[in-house]
């Protein structure tokens, strides 16, 4: 269930772009989807994203992500329809699309950028290294955590725990035998990890140096210009009144 957050290595022109360019891309699109509430314009925004996902070879993973988000998407749509008393179906569609575009814009960033690259950006933004490290480690431990979760579930099921039985309150209670060992185990692990890091001299030097230095290449500049031009163009387009609904 945590698999979606796992970073899978890949290689494509999008993967090789400077992470800062990709962050700008995500920001640009998340701003763009808020400038208009016309469903047709938002649909256009979504369509524009698709070639990027294809070039980045992450279309399938994006689709999986969307599949996992279907309950949320359905909920947003349903609430909008209900609270606007069925008067504005297109408005409900627009709100739903806004959510999808927002997710997609950031999916492009997270699906094609290694956690290490994101950490480098954080360091460049003068965020203290400890916080940056906490961020990369959180991502690093997702697969470990999901494996461990599965073992614990298996162990408790072997002792007759039936997670799929009972009403919703009973089911929540049934998760206690799973959550407690998981939390205890992870806290213990974090202590061990901290000790192991300290024993290897973590925090000894104040000024860290980095093996990789981020540099803007020609490709990055071209990508940056494309993003800026297309964002301004789409922005103007979104503000015009051409859109029917």
């Amino acid at each position: 269930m945590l698999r979606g957050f796992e970073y899978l290595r890949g290689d494509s022109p999008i993967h090789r772009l400077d992470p800062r360019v990709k962050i700008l891309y995500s920001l640009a699109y998340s701003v763009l989807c808020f400038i208009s509430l016309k469903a047709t314009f938002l649909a256009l925004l979504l369509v524009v994203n698709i070639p990027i996902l294809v070039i980045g070879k992450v279309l399938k993973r994006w689709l999986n992500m969307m599949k996992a988000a279907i309950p949320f998407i359905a909920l947003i749509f349903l609430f909008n329809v209900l609270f606007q008393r069925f008067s504005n179906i297109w408005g409900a569609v627009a709100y739903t699309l806004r959510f999808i575009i927002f997710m997609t814009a950031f999916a492009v960033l997270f699906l094609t950028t290694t956690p290490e690259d994101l950490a480098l950006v954080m360091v460049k933004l003068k965020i203290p290294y400890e916080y940056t490290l906490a961020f990369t480690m959180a991502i690093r431990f997702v697969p470990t955590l999901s494996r461990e979760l599965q073992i614990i579930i298996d162990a408790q099921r072997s002792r007759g725990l039936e997670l799929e039985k009972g009403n919703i309150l009973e089911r929540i209670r049934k998760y206690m035998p799973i959550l407690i060992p998981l939390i205890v185990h992870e806290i213990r692990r974090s202590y061990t990890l901290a000790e192991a890091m300290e024993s290897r001299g973590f925090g000894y030097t104040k000024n860290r140096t980095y093996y990789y230095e981020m540099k803007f290449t020609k490709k990055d500049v071209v990508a940056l210009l494309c993003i800026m031009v297309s964002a301004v163009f789409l922005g103007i387009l979104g503000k015009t009144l051409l859109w029917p609904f």
Partner: protein
Amino acid sequence: MPRRDVIEVRDLWYKYPEAKEWVLKGINLTIKEGDLIAIMGENGAGKTTLVKHFNGILKPDKGYVKVCGLDTREHTVAELAKYVGLVFQNPDHQIFASTVLEETMFALKNFGWDPERAKRRAKEVLKEMGLLDYINTSPFSLSGGEKKRLTIASVLVYDPEILVLDEPTVGQDYGQKRRLAEIIERINSLGKTVIVVTHDIEFVAEYIEHVIVMSRGTIIAEGEATKVLCDDNIMKRARLLPPQLGMVVKNLEDYIDFKGNFLRLPVFVENLRRWLENDENVKGI
């Protein structure tokens, strides 16, 4: 009276979801009631994956597994767990309750036992495991060996016919291992089937006579420990080191004809004594 088959595995193939390679490739295996068996093999040979099929946590992709006559594909883990008690490798992956007694009673609660009866039964088992003094303490404060015994107690408590121990000796010192062996022998002597998954060769040599060796998802050997564990070819394929006594016996093979389960120290010594008592033999060297 012929003993019945408690576990029947036929042409079992399995691979984890999203994985490309088969983890188990056509396993065939029959385990009889009252057997004491060790399943051995290197890390990643498929031992744990195989035993997870015994109580239905994993279901076969091809072939079938029958436990006490029940096809695992047609029954839930909870139903099968009543027959097969599976003790996981790391106690920290299951301990959650606030007291040792509650931890032991967990399975009984799941199976809907009456609380008073469950308590009596849990105390009985904890006494057997030498944990009666700890019933009101937190299981998190127990030592490694005690935690291990607690996890065994928490499974034995509902009296399964088959007990499966996954890597029970990992992280246990010599004394704890001996105690574990005593527990295993006692459970087995009560007529229960006990399956021990391990790569602790010395432990197996000393206490378990019947061995199954796995490598890369298949069973490469099955039989008496004295034969299987002393076969260089099998041991090499399984990336295991033969037991020390086995190596000694191999080097003395030309002089002494060892009989019985010579991997057990007392039997080995008895063989040696018998040989030394005969003056002719000593002169021969």
